[in-house]
């Protein structure tokens, strides 16, 4: 075990995958000599050559389109989109091509591709360096959507994504890149895609969250505990395909549910969690399901810390469903 930041764990995950399988390629804007704008790919080009880790022209559509062709022709591409906010030129390639290739070809062609991209607020990035676009992609059958929140999961989920036979959108909580540290095995390991993780147990209220919201929710849960509310925190980790059984199990345990994400509320991932519980476990519910989310506005700049859920807003929701 070594202690790594979430960012270092991602770098380690890519290196581990590249050492194991020479068909793994890493590319995108500034990922080569520069090592990426966040330095996530630092050292890769030196270790693996310019053929396996390289800069591309500045075109997200081209990056993902070419990655799909590589995947169709035997490679394991890991394409970086510099910020998730810049992914939309590639939306067509992701949604129309990568996600549908296996289905439309009857399984004759596949697309084992990973698109890594930093998402989320908290770095004073304004409208175009802060968004959480997971819901756009979770509405797309054929994609997997993964969001780690710890260094251990970051490495294990990333290696699992690279080795997965289907296209994976790997959203990295940039706010946690350097702010969380944790123990990470030095060797190769994977964390199953489509299993959630119980961050802490509690019998009164269940809070579902993912990515950069996990430490915030954990902080709120600890404050709730101080007030005598035993709060279970669940990190979803893989949004698509979702561990629906796990969600229902944790929802039924307490009968009081809060869902937290920083993306806008309307048609956000919290709506899916709420509907899933309403359809399958409403008779277990002791209180209406509460959502704590970003506003249904574009992402602001100077007021971003009011836009994003913080431990106070999460605590308020926990108390609300507990006291209902």
């Amino acid at each position, binding site marked *: 075990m070594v202690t790594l930041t979430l960012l270092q764990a991602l770098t380690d995950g890519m290196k581990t995958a590249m050492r194991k399988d020479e068909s793994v390629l890493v590319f995108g804007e500034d990922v080569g000599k520069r090592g990426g704008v966040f330095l996530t790919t630092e050292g890769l080009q030196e270790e693996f050559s310019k053929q396996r880790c390289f800069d591309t022209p500045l075109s997200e559509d*081209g990056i993902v389109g070419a*990655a799909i062709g590589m995947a169709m022709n035997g490679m394991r*591409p890991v394409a970086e989109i510099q910020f998730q906010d810049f992914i939309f030129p590639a939306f067509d390639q992701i949604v129309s091509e990568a996600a549908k290739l296996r289905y439309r070809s009857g399984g004759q062609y596949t697309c084992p591709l990973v698109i890594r991209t930093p998402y989320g607020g908290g770095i004073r990035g304004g409208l175009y360096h802060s968004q959480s676009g997971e819901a756009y992609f979770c509405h797309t059958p054929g994609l997997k959507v993964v969001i780690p929140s710890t260094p251990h999961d970051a490495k294990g989920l990333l290696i699992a994504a690279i080795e997965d036979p289907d296209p994976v959108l790997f959203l990295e909580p940039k706010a946690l890149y350097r702010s969380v540290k944790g123990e990470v095995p030095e060797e190769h390991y994977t964390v199953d895609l489509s299993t959630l993780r119980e961050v802490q147990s509690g019998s009164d209220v269940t809070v579902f969250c993912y990515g950069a919201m996990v430490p915030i929710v954990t902080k709120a849960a600890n404050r709730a505990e101080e007030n005598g509310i035993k709060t279970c925190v669940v990190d979803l980790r893989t949004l698509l395909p979702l561990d629906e059984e796990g969600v229902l199990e944790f929802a039924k345990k307490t009968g009081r549910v809060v869902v937290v994400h920083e993306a806008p509320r309307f048609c956000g991932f919290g709506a899916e969690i709420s509907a899933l519980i309403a359809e399958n476990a409403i008779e277990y519910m002791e209180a209406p399901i509460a959502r704590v989310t970003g506003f249904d506005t574009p992402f602001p700049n100077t007021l971003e810390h009011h836009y994003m859920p913080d431990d106070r807003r999460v605590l308020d929701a926990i108390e609300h469903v507990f006291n209902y």
Partner: protein
Amino acid sequence: MTATLSITRQILDPAGKLCGTDPELSPEFLKELFVHMLRVRAVDERMLKLQRAGRIGFVGSMFGLEAAMIGSAAALEPQDWLWSGLREGGAALMRGLPLSEYIAQMYGNGSDTAKGRQMCNHQQHVGTHYPSWSSVIGTQIPHGVGAAYASKLRNENAVHAIYFGDGATSSNGFHSGMNFAGVWNAPAVFMCVDNGWAISVPSGHQTAGTYVSRGDAYGMEAHEVDGNDVLATFEAARLLVERARTENKPALLVIKTYRMAGHSSSDDPTRYRDQAEVDRWAAQDPLDRFETYLSSAGLLEQGGRERIYSELIAEIDDESNRQERAPKMPLRSLVDDVYADVPLHLRRQYNRFLEVSKRLGDAQPGDGAFPL
């Protein structure tokens, strides 16, 4: 970049007379090209007939494009890839896509390798490197470039021929694909089949520039060729494909031809173009032109075209009859192939649907529920 290869725009004039340097191809090869071109026309005629009869849903006609697709694709080796748009199915047949699979896809039946998932005229064939393609214009262009990069990395000696129409030159995929290929020195040849029309928009309205000048913009050699002249098209493609293979130099070939039919069986071209224009192109028919040449060279006997054509038609009709009787896809295929394994939420969705289907009498044997 200045073009360095000497490429002739035309070798056979519209009257079928040699007007350029004779490429001195073997008589066998010339006759094969002619049969492949005739097959394209025969398949086209029969598929349109099936569509008019309501047996299949949709046809993207290849009428008029026989020399453009056969001449260019004949320059490829078996290890090469053909990235397709709507109208390259005939080239795929030449390269080994079985006619049975072609027609099964038109029916979307249980023998279709794509399991009936795509609308008609979206063929594929893994064995000859003819990938599944989508109806979205231009998206296959960067795919071909990425796949070419992979081939280069593995020293496969494979060239990726990337086909698209004049309309696709306005798409994102065209520009990003051409640009990436130039920067990466990818072994890719961009086959721009300029057939005059993108549905109802004439080729001249896609750009204020020229298609061939795009090669210069992306640092690659580019040429235009008479796409109704199979010899010129073959020679140009051969030179560019070999250059891509031996030197990893991408190139653009603009194949100037004409879409004689509507965009598809759902289109009525009389709404937007003059018959006089169609007639002018009919006088340049690629098959008539090549037939005249072969006859004058003593390679095609009197009535040879009609004989070959009726044999091809008989083969296609036989296969169509067989495919018409093939079973449909099982209901369970609705949720297969979304992922490598069917995830729990899809198994649940399907099983719930199956309960209703059984009640309504839609379910067949083989549509059984998934274990949960």
